[in-house]
């Protein structure tokens, strides 16, 4: 069970809805993933276009919560307005707050991010900030009112797995009671399992599933890996040892040489 503000969910996987080959594949992936939350975005719509309505209808049928994002925003101001529009559209106080420094790396801009988080929290939003493993930024986001953090694993869409596991471990240790979701950079199930073994509470995925050869199977694989990593974390794993030791008992071995 993982808590996001006043909501408690079973699944520790959040799934992005972009980049799938078709709405049907998206729906199959969401179902296979067992995700309780999907992310969504907003964009300009021409009069009579109706694509927003179709997407909205699709999401409704999936029966999952929606976490709208502020993708593409570079300033606090843009992000705040985007969040306000998203709140009206999706009818939720939740906002995945993305304020990025450049198009190329899509890295979070901590300055604009913290400012936007302050404004939005004060305005009643429940902010899920996409951030780095920076401890000072985390501290300010929490002070701004965030009850969830979404540190990146690696830049969006890279599929590299965790770039800085040591830094993420320090972040986890610094705020053990804050819900933290690894967002972005996951490519394979093992990456997601590592994130969970480090003690993170959930993982948000998109490209790794949407662009896999078989998105629904990958969605299920990710869901299993996330559960596996969580259970592994909870089951108190053995520490790595430097030298080998036999696992079969050596006492009582028959002497046959």
């Amino acid at each position, binding site marked *: 069970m993982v808590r996001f503000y006043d909501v408690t969910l079973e699944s520790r996987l959040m799934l*992005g809805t972009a980049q799938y080959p078709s709405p049907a594949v998206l729906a199959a992936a969401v179902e296979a993933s067992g995700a309780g939350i999907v992310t*969504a975005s907003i964009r300009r*719509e021409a*009069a009579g276009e109706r*694509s*927003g*309505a179709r997407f*909205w209808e699709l999401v409704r049928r999936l029966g999952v919560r929606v976490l709208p994002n502020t993708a593409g925003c570079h300033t606090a101001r843009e992000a705040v*307005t985007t969040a306000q529009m998203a709140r009206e559209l999706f009818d939720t106080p939740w906002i995945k707050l993305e304020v990025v420094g450049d198009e190329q790396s899509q890295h979070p801009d901590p300055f604009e991010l913290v400012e936007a988080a302050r404004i939005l929290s004060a305005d009643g939003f429940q902010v899920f900030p996409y951030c780095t493993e920076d401890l000072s930024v985390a501290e300010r986001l929490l002070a701004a009112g965030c009850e969830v953090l979404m540190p990146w694993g690696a830049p969006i869409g890279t599929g590299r797995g965790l770039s800085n596991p040591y830094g993420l471990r320090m972040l986890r240790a610094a705020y053990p009671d804050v819900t933290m979701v690894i967002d972005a950079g996951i490519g394979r199930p093992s990456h997601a399992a590592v994130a969970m073994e480090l003690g993170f509470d959930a993982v948000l995925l998109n490209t790794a599933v949407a662009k896999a050869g078989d998105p629904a199977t990958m969605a299920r694989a990710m869901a299993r890996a996330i559960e596996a990593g969580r259970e592994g974390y909870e089951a108190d794993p053995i520490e790595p040892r430097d030298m080998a030791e036999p696992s079969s008992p050596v006492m009582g071995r028959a002497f046959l040489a």
Partner: protein
Amino acid sequence: MRIILNGAETEVEATRLDAALAELGYAEGPFATAVNQSFVHREKRGETELEEGDRIEVVAPLQGG
């Protein structure tokens, strides 16, 4: 009156946001609005006066990551 709708210059006769949207063909369906980079709540559209050159954004839900 000339406004900028989603980045493109457009002429509208209406002077309030709700009327302008109707004139431009935005009827049903979920959409949200901003004028000059500030959000305009659905219920405030009727009292939002437009001025020459205002930048209006009309957005809808979309898949996202």
